[in-house]
């Protein structure tokens, strides 16, 4: 059904807030997370990690460890597939070093033993001979003269001659001619901005249980955002066929992008294969912080030209993102995203990926966008102040709308940026008077959103209840949203639908739970799968009535004759048709497979008030409002959860979270005590305003909401702290020492 037809429809289930189906299990502790799987005779794994930021591995002597009672297997790089290329090679190189340790915490060997303590003790007995090499961890140092070159072979062909050899990828986009645009400007501002690496900070560490058997088959249970992806990568790294490994996703305690890749899963499989027993591995927090992906650190240079009336005449940006010792930093993203909310004639954006001796960066909600927007939205803020224009009015003046060609290329269909700006302006928050030492920040954000490959199946039971199988781990309440959409299409109560995350052997391929795709793409597939079942139900009713199937339509849980010409029959309910299905033609199931391409872009406007203690430089967030276009909020609680979560993670990133490296290149803050995510008492209640400008590409109008929500907060908080402190804050985190210093010096702390 085209969206236009759906527009005026009153929804019965969509937009309500029923309890999530996994709720009771989760609040009673019954839910099984990654570390909650056990098997008879299972072993426990541990990992030997490099204490050096950069070193040649001369020799790994495992003999003493092997001799320890209880040690059953030890693996090194030699126990994995050879001849890998591309990202598979990068992942293998990251999870098990070969000739060089590339960062502090890089895995070199792994042990399986009969208890976690023996495994840990054995790890200490592995003797590694290193030849330490010069290292670099800071992004600016990494592309300055004298920095050690991390891996020249990863430099892509389009990186121009003369660039520093730690720049491995270059991307550019834009339109018009920025020189012309800057020529038309009354005011030009250009600044550099820096952000530190931050970890996704999920509460549940990586955990898995692998069982490989001598027949070459295997099973893996793990916490992941995508078990098909785990299956594909593990099979490649082990050198087995994909389908021989069956992967089951556990409940997941947060991922935010970093559980779209693997760290310990192939290692557990390799240990199990060698020991011929099940092997469980659970990371501790220090391992998570040292060796799983944080987001990139960054250095952005942004220049904007503006007319006196606030019209942007040109925008230029260079975004350098550090991705660890691997060519994976998402530097394309800030280049495309930062000025996407605006209608700009002349724009030129460059993204550069930088190599350092740090762990391989991993996706973190809207990868690459928040740090770029930290730069662009602050420059706009500064210009609004300079020109005496209200920051929301400035954005409204330049806002992209339907028909605008974004600086990154595409022409927008119906989008909701203007609606979020207008709602933010009208929100009571925006007119609350500020007290002394307080400042208000505004920032907008954009994220592409994504479709991705999706398979869904549903099965009808004889009692009329429905089992829906999806292949995307439920990370934010998506089972509830799927059940609501199925209920809407089938016309049966939400409670009659049970949604299961199927394993890789039970349902066709699915991309990860990422890219803000699940409610959109899996929702679309759920709707279509249910429609394929209602078609069959109509056919069964037609058979019963002896009329043409085309003369039957499905409405609110009943098969009905489609009009007076079809004849007059008592409507048949789903329950009635299900009860008879085995006699009327057999089981009734629905399924749908696709890679939908019509994800609607997401826009948001954030408002935040911050108070800065002038004596200590400490920032306290006193008020925060997120206004975001969700297209259509299927289950508003979980939309608000995404909005609040994005804001909170952004506040942490802005104020206190950072990777602190010592001179020796080792990470210094490897526990949550020193890696400072915000605690509950640091935060005000985050207010949410859901805007619904339907996505024309989804039957119910859904847009993804998982990532847009983290795009504006770094900039919004920085704009607020800049206003409160009187000094433009160009470097994250805005920790008390840094802010206090900037206030005392009365100038930007570079």
């Amino acid at each position: 059904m085209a969206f236009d037809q759906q527009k005026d429809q009153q929804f019965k289930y969509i937009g309500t807030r029923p309890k999530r189906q996994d709720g009771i299990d989760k609040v009673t502790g019954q839910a099984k997370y990654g570390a909650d799987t056990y098997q008879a005779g299972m072993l426990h794994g541990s990992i030997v990690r490099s204490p050096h930021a950069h070193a040649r591995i001369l020799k790994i002597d495992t003999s003493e460890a092997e001799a320890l009672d209880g040690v059953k297997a030890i693996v090194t790089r030699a126990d994995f597939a050879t001849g890998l290329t591309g990202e598979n090679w990068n992942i293998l190189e990251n999870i098990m070093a070969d000739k060089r340790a590339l960062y502090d915490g890089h895995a070199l060997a792994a042990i399986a033993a009969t208890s976690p303590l023996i495994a840990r003790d054995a790890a200490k007995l592995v003797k590694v001979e290193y030849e330490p090499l010069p290292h670099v961890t800071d992004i600016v140092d990494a592309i300055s003269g004298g920095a050690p070159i991390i891996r020249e072979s990863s430099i892509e062909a389009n990186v121009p001659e003369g660039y520093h050899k730690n720049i491995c990828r270059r991307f550019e986009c834009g339109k018009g001619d920025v020189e012309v645009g800057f020529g038309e400007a009354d005011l030009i501002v250009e600044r550099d901005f820096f952000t530190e690496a931050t970890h996704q900070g999920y509460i549940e560490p990586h955990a898995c249980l692998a069982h490989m058997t001598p027949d070459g088959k295997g099973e893996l249970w793990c916490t992941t955002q995508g078990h098909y992806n785990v299956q594909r990568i593990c099979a490649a790294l082990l050198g087995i066929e994909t389908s021989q490994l069956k992967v089951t996703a556990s409940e997941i305690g947060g991922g935010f992008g970093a559980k779209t890749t693997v760290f310990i899963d192939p290692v557990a499989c390799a240990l199990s294969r060698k020991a011929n027993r099940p092997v469980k591995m659970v990371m501790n927090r220090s391992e998570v912080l040292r060796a799983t992906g944080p987001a990139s650190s960054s250095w952005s240079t942004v220049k904007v030209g503006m007319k006196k009336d606030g019209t942007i005449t040109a925008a230029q940006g260079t975004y350098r993102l550090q991705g660890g010792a691997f060519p994976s930093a998402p530097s394309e993203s800030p280049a495309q995203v930062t000025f996407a909310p605006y209608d700009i004639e002349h724009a030129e954006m460059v993204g550069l990926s930088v190599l350092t001796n740090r762990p391989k960066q991993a996706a973190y909600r809207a990868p690459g966008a928040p740090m770029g927007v930290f730069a662009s939205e602050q420059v706009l803020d500064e210009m609004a102040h300079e020109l005496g224009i209200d920051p929301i009015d400035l954005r409204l003046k330049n806002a992209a709308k339907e028909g605008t060609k974004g600086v990154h290329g595409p022409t927008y269909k119906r989008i909701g940026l203007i609606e979020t700006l207008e709602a933010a302006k009208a929100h009571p928050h925006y007119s609350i008077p500020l007290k002394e030492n307080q400042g208000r920040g505004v920032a907008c954000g954009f994220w592409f959103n994504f479709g991705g490959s999706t398979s869904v199946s549903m099965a009808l039971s004889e009692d009329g209840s429905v089992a829906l199988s999806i292949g995307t781990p439920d990370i934010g309440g998506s089972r509830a949203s799927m059940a609501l959409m199925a209920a809407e299409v089938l016309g049966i109560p939400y409670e009659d639908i049970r949604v299961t995350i199927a394993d890789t052997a039970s349902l066709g391929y699915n991309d990860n739970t990422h890219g803000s795709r699940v409610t959109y793409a899996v929702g679309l597939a759920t709707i279509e799968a249910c429609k394929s079942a209602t078609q069959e139900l109509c056919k069964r009713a037609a058979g019963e009535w002896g009329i043409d199937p085309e003369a039957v339509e499905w409405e609110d849980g009943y098969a009905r004759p489609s009009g007076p010409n079809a004849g007059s029959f008592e409507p048949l309910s789903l329950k009635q048709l299900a009860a008879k299905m085995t006699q009327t033609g057999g089981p009734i199931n629905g399924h749908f497979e696709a890679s939908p391409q019509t994800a609607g872009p997401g826009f948001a406007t954030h408002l935040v008030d911050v108070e800065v203690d002038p004596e200590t430089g400490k920032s306290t967030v006193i008020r925060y409002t997120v206004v975001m276009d969700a297209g259509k909020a299927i289950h508003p609680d979980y939309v608000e959860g995404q909005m609040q979560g994005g804001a909170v993670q952004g506040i942490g990133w802005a104020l206190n979270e950072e990777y602190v490296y010592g001179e020796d290149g080792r990470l210094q803050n490897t526990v949550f005590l020193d890696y400072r995510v915000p605690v509950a008492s640091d935060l005000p209640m985050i207010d949410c305003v859901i805007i619904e400008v339907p996505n024309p590409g989804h039957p119910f109008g859904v847009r993804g909401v998982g990532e847009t929500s983290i795009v504006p907060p770094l900039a919004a908080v920085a704009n607020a702290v800049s206003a409160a402190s009187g000094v433009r804050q160009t470097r994250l985190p805005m920790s008390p020492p840094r802010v206090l210093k900037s206030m005392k010096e009365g100038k930007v702390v570079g």
Partner: protein
Amino acid sequence: MKYFKPDSFDDAIEIATKAEGTTRFLAGGTDVLVQLRADIVTPDTLIDLKGIDGVSDITQNNDGSWTLGVAVTGAEMSEHPTLEKDWPGVVEAMDLIGSTQVQGRATLVGNLCNGSPAADSVPAMVAAGVTLTVKGPNGSREVAVEDVPTGPGKTSLSADEVVTAVHIPASGAGRGDAYERFIPRTEMDIAVVGCGISLRVVDNVIVEARVAMGAVAPTIRLVPDAATALEGSTLDDAALDAVAEAARAACSPIDDKRGTIEFRIDVAGVLAKRVAKTAYERARAAQ
């Protein structure tokens, strides 16, 4: 690792005297067990003190002073009906430690003997003039809290000595004490700077003061100059500036992941002023 749970301090001392390698006493375990799990310190001998009679008692003596057992937890101190009235600063300092769960285990003596320069209860105890009974193979001695820490992770106690009791003096009329720390968040963090002040007023004039600073030097510092700056004053602006200056002068901090030297020195002065104000208000109310 060997684990013991003796039922007297004498037995505990005997076990400690005979022990080889690394020995730890187990009070709440919120440092010992965390360090064990994190592979920082793996004791050869672990002596649990919670089986000894009276270690969880809070007693007010006839002279108004207090004796606390060495396993009394932060939660037990906060929930005591009258301790906080006498010594709000000591109780609030202990109460800052960790979460509700940690409060159910953590102790004053553990906080002190772990030897962290940032330990929260220690500046408050030093300001309040708290003393300890320390017992070893050669008998007992009384020790002032400020004489226990000797450096990060180090104390003046020998390996076979154990703290058997904590003594808080009588507070008396006109007494006020307070503790505050600076952390970048609101809780679950380590002090970047800590300050404890105890003072006594007569007719609103400060007649006696003790000021202690935490996290600004290798050990908690008692700052006599800051006390002198307060004494004789009614906490006017000049006294506040002088106390801030003295607090800053006492700092010899380090640059680390938690704060810079410059920042710590700066904030030491800010905190000293703020804490002095709170202690002074409390003292005036207790006249």
